[in-house]
């Protein structure tokens, strides 16, 4: 199939960017979205032009590197799908596709579709850890944790840190990401030690990094490729209330 791409091109963080139009011809429906971009880049390189710069790594939906807003939706907006797992069969011959980087003050553009997401790392460093010794691998099951708690923590741990929740949020808030970390650790015995400081420090870091405030638009949950639920944001709010109430 043949498509027309409108891609955000921006040389560097300090340059102005704009949408450029490129044809994508002879695309197979079996390609992933990133393979389609690889094809377009081959053509650009052959013609002596700079290829479109984009983030990617695992290409199997687990690393969280791929990050593109496609036709106004983070990762293309398909349920529980990262860009690398989005296939061209979900498009039609003749489609116009708009591809833009994540937009947020806390995610400055590095080049074209690549943004700097180290602000999420800063949030993690502020409290996304526990200080207790968990032992070596064999000790993994030494401290039994009930199935419901383990399942809940695993659901939160599914977050791959891609930043789609920020990209989709009208306020550019990283509350879904932060809440997944806070909730995952808060319910487990190992995470209880720093539970109080964690919710304060991580949400303070979120604010300091220039993310917006959550106003419950619920766009994050709909944008998230891992189906992280806003119930974790409710949990974060409860943890905050508990901490403030002393």
């Amino acid at each position: 199939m043949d498509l027309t791409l409108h891609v955000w091109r921006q040389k560097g963080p300090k340059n102005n960017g704009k949408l450029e139009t490129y044809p994508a011809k002879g695309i197979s429906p079996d390609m992933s979205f990133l393979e389609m971009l690889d094809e377009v880049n081959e053509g650009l390189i052959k013609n002596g032009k700079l290829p479109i710069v984009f983030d990617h790594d695992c290409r199997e939906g687990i690393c969280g590197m791929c990050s593109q807003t496609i036709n106004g939706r983070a990762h293309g907006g398909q349920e529980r799908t990262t860009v690398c797992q989005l296939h061209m069969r979900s498009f039609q011959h003749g489609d116009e596709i708009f591809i833009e980087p994540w937009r947020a003050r806390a995610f400055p553009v590095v080049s074209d579709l690549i943004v700097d997401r180290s602000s999420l790392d800063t949030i993690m460093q502020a409290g996304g850890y526990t200080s207790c010794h968990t032992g070596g691998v064999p000790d993994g099951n030494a401290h039994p944790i009930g199935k419901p708690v383990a399942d809940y923590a695993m659901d939160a741990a599914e977050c791959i840190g891609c930043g789609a929740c920020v990209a989709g949020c009208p306020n550019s808030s990283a509350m879904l990401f932060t809440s997944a970390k806070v909730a995952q650790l808060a319910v487990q015995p190992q995470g209880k030690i720093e539970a109080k400081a964690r919710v304060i420090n991580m949400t303070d870091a979120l604010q300091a990094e220039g993310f917006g405030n959550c106003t419950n638009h619920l766009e994050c949950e709909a944008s998230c490729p891992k189906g992280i639920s806003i119930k974790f944001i409710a949990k974060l709010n409860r943890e905050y209330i508990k901490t403030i109430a002393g």
Partner: protein
Amino acid sequence: MHLTQSTVGRKLLMAVTGLLLVGFITMHLLGNLSVFAGPDGINAYAEHLHDLGPLVWFFRLIMLALFVVHITLGVQLSLENRTATPVNYSIKKRMKTTFSSESMLYTGLILLAFLIYHLLHFTFQLTNPEISAHNLPLDAAMRPDVFTMVVLSFQKVFVSLVYIVGMLALFLHLNHGLSSFVQTFGLNNGPSQEKVTLGGKLIAVGFLLAYIAIPVLILARFVNV
């Protein structure tokens, strides 16, 4: 203090003040509906309120404080959210959020404008002095004739329109606000969200219909002096 500066803390204060304001509009509505009981309804209600004396002023001060906190934080948080997104997408598709959620600042500001008009109209009685209770004769039981003031006011199309627009803004504001505060207080468990959203919408519709009935029924001459 963390509560007044942090991202979650200020959100909680918005929710608490918002909820108390909802408490106020519930009481206010129940009082207002007494207009349908005629002069003996609303005139007696208005006189009882006045008899409370200093308590009324205490109550007004609390209301003022609630509004100041709610509005200051609302504007502050909204402005911060705007700075957090300096470049807009050339296309942005809404996935789950609603018009109500996106227009909270605007419906809030319309409510503020409405509130000022409302106070000038019925409390200070400056906008339509010729039909204000200050200038109308007392009713048969020698009470200020609030009933006649309300009825003659809402028989004016302009006045009724202002109130109808104000109540539509209230509906949109509550349509987001009522389900939002449940989440802000941490009372959601994921699957409950849909029901909470529906519940919030139904209550918001209830407020809209009940409040709007007053100008609409008077404008349609179901209630006369």
